[in-house]
């Protein structure tokens, strides 16, 4: 780690040596490359000045809760982006696993219970269901990874088809046992407590337990990305698959495993989403991958491939959430929010390309 103070001194010393034209370029580069951070800062300052309750502990608790909910999917999808791919099936996979988790963990005495003869909801059963849905996600991820790696198909094609297939399975599952497409509700108290139970209070807002789980997940992913040979292979394949192959990296298994790991993350995201949304409908998880991809790109996981960091992903999710929390507080219409989201993604991609082109 370099000392940030020293770095600033270094930059200012370099700056003094520049001539007028380079100084101008220094500023335009600085402003444009950090455009999204500046945008966020403007929104935060403006929102804080017109809505004083934006800067309370309670609203901060709300923010980290949202970040913890959106983070797992972004952590998963980032691996696919590092491999110069993408994953369009993320949202639907989490929708499917949310539905599975909800059905398995309904109240024992709930009248509309889908499967009557399930065991009583205990901690062991909850953990088993969690492992189960993570496994379901991982299997779909494995299918994605297999087709991408085996036939060198573009992930766009493969994951688009698994997205639709998964949606079909979701609809089919919702129609089972005379459920006829009703949302799954009546989640058991134990499940709600395990995921959304109070960890601690900030201000007067409870921070749920899944914030802690997200922290653990970040630690796990950081370890996988930085400390294992699998992580290093992932970056090698992402920056140049041919070169990686020549230097002895198993490109096939790396690709398969990255997608499987991503699938497992979506599975976990679904497990949390079940509690977060209270009742799971067929539309749960729709378009969730867009937010995750946007967060990754904002956080510097480049579509060029082979670059990205866990801290960047966290930052990306934070920035996206701060912007949306601020805009919702200001009362910006949800239809405008979609346009803004699209503009942010386009802007983030342009920034991504710009940084790549300008880099010496």
């Amino acid at each position: 780690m370099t000392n940030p103070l020293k770095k600033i001194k270094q930059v200012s010393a370099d700056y003094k040596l520049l001539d007028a034209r380079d100084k101008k370029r220094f500023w335009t580069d600085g402003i444009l490359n950090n455009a999204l951070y500046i945008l966020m800062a403007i929104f935060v300052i403006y929102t804080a000045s017109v809505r004083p309750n934006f800067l309370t502990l309670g609203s901060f608790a709300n923010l980290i809760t949202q970040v913890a909910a959106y983070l797992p999917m972004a952590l998963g999808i980032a691996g696919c982006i590092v491999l110069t791919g993408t994953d369009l099936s993320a949202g639907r996979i989490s929708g499917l696993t949310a539905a599975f988790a909800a059905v398995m963990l309904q109240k024992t005495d709930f009248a509309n219970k889908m499967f009557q003869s399930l065991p009583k909801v205990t901690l062991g059963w909850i953990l088993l269901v969690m492992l189960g849905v993570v496994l379901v996600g991982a299997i779909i991820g494995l299918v994605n990874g297999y087709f991408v790696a085996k036939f060198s198909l573009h992930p766009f094609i493969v994951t688009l088809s698994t997205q639709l297939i998964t949606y079909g399975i979701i609809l089919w599952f919702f129609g089972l046992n005379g459920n006829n497409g009703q949302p799954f509700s009546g989640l058991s108290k134990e499940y709600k407590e395990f995921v959304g139970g109070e960890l601690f209070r900030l201000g007067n807002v409870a921070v749920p337990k899944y914030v802690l789980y997200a922290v653990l997940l970040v630690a796990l992913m950081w370890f996988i990305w930085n400390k294992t040979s699998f992580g290093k292979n992932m970056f090698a394949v992402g920056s140049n698959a041919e070169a990686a192959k020549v230097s002895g990296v198993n490109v096939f298994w790396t690709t398969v495993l990255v997608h499987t790991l991503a699938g497992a993350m979506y599975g976990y995201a679904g497990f949390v989403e079940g509690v977060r949304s209270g009742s799971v409908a067929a539309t749960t998880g729709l378009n969730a991958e867009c937010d995750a991809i946007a967060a990754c790109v904002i956080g510097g996981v480049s579509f060029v491939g082979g670059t990205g960091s866990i801290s960047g992903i966290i930052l990306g999710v934070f920035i996206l959430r701060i912007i949306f929390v601020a805009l919702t507080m200001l009362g910006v219409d949800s239809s405008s929010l979609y346009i803004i989201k699209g503009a942010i993604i386009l802007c983030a991609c342009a920034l991504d390309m710009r940084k790549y082109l300008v880099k010496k």
Partner: protein
Amino acid sequence: MEQNIKESQTPEKQPREFRGLYKHVKISVKTLDIIIVTCLVVIVLLVALDLRNPGFTITFESKGGTDVASQNQMYGELLEVPEDPTREGYEFTGWYLDSACEELWEEDEDKIQSDITLYAGWEKK
């Protein structure tokens, strides 16, 4: 000889080639700058445009009582409780979410999350 000179010049002039998902993208830094600035302007304009809209509208349907002015509130705010309307021969029982007056709007608890219409509840004196 000429070939050689050309080749040695090209790496200087040509921008870096993209890899990955941007593989075939041909775009200059200037165009990218325009895109970035346009996106930012669009975002800020949209927000500014939306802020002219002061929030969600709460309409009051007094159902035969005196009229109550509608108000605008932001997401997550409490209702600014208006003065109770009056009606001949009836007593006001509160504001309800449905016209059948079954779901009471809890003035201290319920927060505004969308445009709503509230209906006055009346009880015969």
